[in-house]
């Protein structure tokens, strides 16, 4: 339906020509074969056609003249086998061979056809073997249409069909067949040309409407080279073939011949070759369309084979060549890209005009650029292995690790929490010399440091890649911020409480690796346990008492630690210039300290009434009876005032015989004069008491006035069984402490002047001393620890110290009595030390000498 009567339907509407497969069409190797089977194929394979037809000439029915032929004689038995029969057998063999020889051509045609569908437009560059396939294609395209067209010239038809009929009838020789095939293969274009010219109207648009460029990929036969021409000729030959179409009028006479030649034999072949390679170009050149058409093959070539671009490229403007040339002096560059090209285009001329220095500078710069390009090239080797997203992901993981490892708790509660979390390390580091970090430095600085570092590295890169780096840093910062935010949010849902469950599931993180189940402790149980503790105390259960005492001690420790923490937070001491708010802060701090002190004092239970049912007696003594309680005393003494200290000291003196280190170390029977060694556990606790508690007491007593010493000694002598405590190490030590302090005060006051001496106090003291001396004198032989019998490890220094202290304060009579009381011991020790190694002997004699010198003697006198 068109105005001009053309078939206006587009090829796609019409459907694809099934015999001209496109690129994507599945190859149908037998497409061409099937189209031909109607004709030659059958002829070839039919035995009738191969039969020589000699038999047809026999007249089977005409037996009448047999006698004329063979004679009337009866047929003999002497058949001529070597005559006629051998001739026939020879013919049969020939036939067989001929048939065999004929078989290949029909077999080959499918193969050739098979090559056809895989048409890519490059077949023309392949070997000559493939060229037959081109012929087949041409026939596919042209032949059927020829066959269909009824108005095809009769002569042409006769020529094309006649011979084929003749071939069918008349046997072709092998040579003829081969020749025909060769001729067919060598003039596919000619066949096609004829086909194109004689296409009926319906199919004409296909060939004509197709622009040359378009038709080429689909029908590469246009540019298909003849086997004789090489690739350079091919371009020329390809062009002319297509150019024939406009000039077909001139070629008209030749073309019918060509069409006929397609089926006939050698002669067309000879005709064809000159017409293609030699005859045609001359005819084309004068044509007006020739020049315009000549360009088209070139462009077609480009379309067809992009690899051939070098030709056109060489014709391109000379700037490129100049640019490359300008680049060359700068040394080999790999990145001869956009960056290099821009300045270079104008340079070569400029370079000549430059001065030596400038040129050198320029070359230097160029070299540097080249070097940089080379480096970029080297670095870019691994480019693209990780996407930016990958890198960001890795970075985020690392940052989150950092933040969760060090950040969250500190962020929540500040450095104080860090101290809580890492108390041992922090304080240990403080005490034993900080190994790496300031103990009070908040840990979050770690995170800060690391985050800064990771942020800094892109900053360096930033210098090199100004634009891309900036963006990266920004994103990095956002990333860090997000990571920190996420880490801050995370602890809020650390636990998952499932409805109706007793416990809660807590998620572990790096900070708290495994608190998997966290059962909420009801507040009431604490109260219950507190109220319940009184029951076992009253029930005289020693275990329960001990437990209660331990709890008391723990509470004491907790208060103590709170005080120590509070002490660390002490604001700077105020003076006149201190602003009011700071003073206020200080006042508040002092108030808090006071409260804590009070609670500490309460926890010590010094002032609590004695529980008559408790086996230990006074609660404070109970606290002191446990190692923990002993150890807490030095720390407590730092935080309490003098009044509290004297109270503690008084309590200790008052209940000295209740103190475990005295009570357990003293002999069970006061009248038992045999020296007994306390059990090892007691000795350990005595040792601990001497090391932990005594220094604190001694430290206080060393500063105490005589009044207090007198008071304490009076209390001791009044309330405590002195004879008993004299036989314990702790008791002796306390007495020694008091007596020696009194002596020191006496010496100090007498050295200054007699004015400050309070006569009444000294009288009191002398009375007490005499009382003590009187009480001590009977037990003096027994105060030596029994280990004296084992001289090597004698632990009697405290005894000698006591004796020395007593001796200093004693009058002459008392000194004499002292010497009498301990004379045996002194002599024993001196005697023993003679048998001992010099080191131990010297130590022991030194101990004895403490006493001897106090009474104005020396061990050396005894040894002589």
């Amino acid at each position, binding site marked *: 339906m068109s105005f001009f009567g053309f078939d206006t339907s587009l090829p796609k509407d019409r459907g694809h020509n099934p015999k001209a497969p496109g690129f994507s069409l599945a190859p149908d190797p037998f497409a061409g074969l099937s189209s031909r089977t109607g004709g030659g194929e059958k002829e070839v394979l039919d035995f009738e056609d191969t039969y020589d037809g000699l038999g047809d000439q026999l007249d089977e029915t005409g037996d009448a003249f047999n006698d004329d032929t063979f004679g009337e004689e009866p047929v003999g038995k002497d058949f001529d086998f070597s005559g006629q029969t051998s001739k026939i057998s020879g013919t049969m063999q020939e036939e067989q061979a001929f048939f065999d020889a004929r078989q290949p051509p029909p077999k080959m045609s499918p193969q050739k056809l098979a090559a056809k569908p895989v048409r890519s437009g490059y077949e023309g560059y392949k070997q000559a073997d493939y060229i037959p396939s081109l012929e087949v294609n041409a026939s596919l395209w042209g032949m059927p249409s020829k066959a269909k067209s009824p108005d095809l010239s009769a002569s042409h038809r006769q020529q094309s069909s006649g011979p084929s009929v003749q071939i069918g009838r008349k046997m072709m020789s092998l040579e003829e067949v081969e020749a025909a095939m060769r001729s067919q293969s060598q003039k596919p274009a000619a066949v096609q040309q004829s086909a194109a010219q004689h296409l009926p109207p319906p199919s004409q648009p296909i060939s004509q409407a197709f622009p040359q460029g378009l038709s080429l990929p689909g029908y590469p036969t246009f540019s298909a080279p003849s086997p004789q021409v090489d690739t350079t000729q091919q371009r020329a030959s390809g062009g002319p073939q297509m150019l024939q179409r406009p000039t077909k009028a001139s070629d008209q006479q030749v073309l019918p011949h060509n069409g006929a030649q397609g089926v006939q034999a050698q002669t067309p072949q000879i005709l064809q070759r000159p017409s293609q390679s030699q005859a045609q170009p001359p005819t084309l050149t004068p044509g007006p369309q020739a020049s315009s058409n000549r360009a088209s093959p070139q462009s077609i070539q480009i379309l067809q084979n992009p690899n051939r671009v070098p030709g056109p490229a060489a014709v391109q403007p000379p700037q490129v060549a100049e640019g490359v040339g300008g680049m060359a002096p700068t040394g080999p560059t790999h990145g001869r890209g956009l960056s290099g090209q821009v300045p270079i285009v104008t340079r070569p001329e400029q370079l000549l005009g430059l001065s030596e220095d400038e040129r050198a500078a320029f070359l230097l710069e160029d070299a540097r650029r080249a070097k940089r390009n080379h480096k970029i090239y080297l670095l870019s080797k691994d480019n693209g292995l990780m996407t930016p997203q990958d890198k960001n992901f890795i970075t985020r993981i690392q940052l989150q690790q950092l933040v969760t490892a060090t950040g969250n708790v500190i962020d929540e509660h500040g450095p104080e929490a860090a101290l809580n979390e890492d108390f041992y390390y*922090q304080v240990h580091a403080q005490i034993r010399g900080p190994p790496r970090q300031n103990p009070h430095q908040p840990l979050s600085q770690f995170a800060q440091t690391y985050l800064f570092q990771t942020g800094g590295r892109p900053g360096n890169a930033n210098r090199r890649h100004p634009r891309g780096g900036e963006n990266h840093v920004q994103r990095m910062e956002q990333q860090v911020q997000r990571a920190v935010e996420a880490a801050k949010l995370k602890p809020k849902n650390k636990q998952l409480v499932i409805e109706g469950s007793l416990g809660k599931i807590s998620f572990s993180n790096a*900070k708290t690796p495994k608190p998997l189940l966290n*059962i909420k402790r009801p507040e009431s149980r604490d109260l219950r346990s507190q109220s319940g503790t009184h029951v076992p105390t009253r029930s005289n259960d020693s275990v329960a008492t001990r437990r209660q005492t331990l709890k008391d001690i723990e509470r004491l*420790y907790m208060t103590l630690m709170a005080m120590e923490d509070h002490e660390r937070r002490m604001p700077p001491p105020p003076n006149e210039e201190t602003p009011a708010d700071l003073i206020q802060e200080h006042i508040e701090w002092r108030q808090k300290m006071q409260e804590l002190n009070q609670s500490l004092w309460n926890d010590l239970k010094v002032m609590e009434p004695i529980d008559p049912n408790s086996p230990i007696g006074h609660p404070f003594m109970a606290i002191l009876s446990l190692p923990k309680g002993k150890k807490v005393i030095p720390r407590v003494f730092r935080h309490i005032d003098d009044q509290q200290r004297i109270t503690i000291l008084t309590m200790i003196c008052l209940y000295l015989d209740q103190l475990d280190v005295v009570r357990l170390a003293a002999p069970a029977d006061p009248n038992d004069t045999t020296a007994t060694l306390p059990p090892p556990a007691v000795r350990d606790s005595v040792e601990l008491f001497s090391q932990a508690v005594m220094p604190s007491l001694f430290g206080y007593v060393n500063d105490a006035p005589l009044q207090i010493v007198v008071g304490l000694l009076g209390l001791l002598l009044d309330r405590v069984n002195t004879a008993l405590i004299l036989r314990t190490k702790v008791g002796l030590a306390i007495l020694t402490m008091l007596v020696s302090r009194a002596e020191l005060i006496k010496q100090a006051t007498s050295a200054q002047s007699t004015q400050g001496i309070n006569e009444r106090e000294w009288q009191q003291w002398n009375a007490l001393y005499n009382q003590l001396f009187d009480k001590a004198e009977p037990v003096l032989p027994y105060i030596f620890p029994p280990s004296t019998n084992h001289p090597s490890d004698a632990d009697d220094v405290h005894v000698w110290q006591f004796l020395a202290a007593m001796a200093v304060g004693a009058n002459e009579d008392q000194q004499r009595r002292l010497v009498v009381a301990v004379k045996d011991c002194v002599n024993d020790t001196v005697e023993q030390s003679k048998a001992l190694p010099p080191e131990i002997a010297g130590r022991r004699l030194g101990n004895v000498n403490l006493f001897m010198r106090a009474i104005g003697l020396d061990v050396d006198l005894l040894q002589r």
Partner: protein
Amino acid sequence: MLFFSFFKTLVDHEVTVELKNDISIRGTLKSVDQFLNIKLDNINVVEEMKYPHLSSVKNVFIRGSVVRYVHLPSGAVDTALLEDATRREATQASARAKQG
């Protein structure tokens, strides 16, 4: 965190790590992390004859979960401080438990 805190103070001290497979390794503690993974340097195995395959090993990283005991250098341990740290830890734990 108590043990982490504690072991941090033992860095550069010689410790003996007894593993759950009965191998005892003595070496200088180089580092420890919150999982109590342990890095030891200059190690030697206590029963070297029994575990000859370790005689050429100079330093080890021990996963915290395979450690049975760590024998401490008593001189490097501040018992009183450790007690206090334990008290703090316990207080925090109970406070956390009460808090929910």
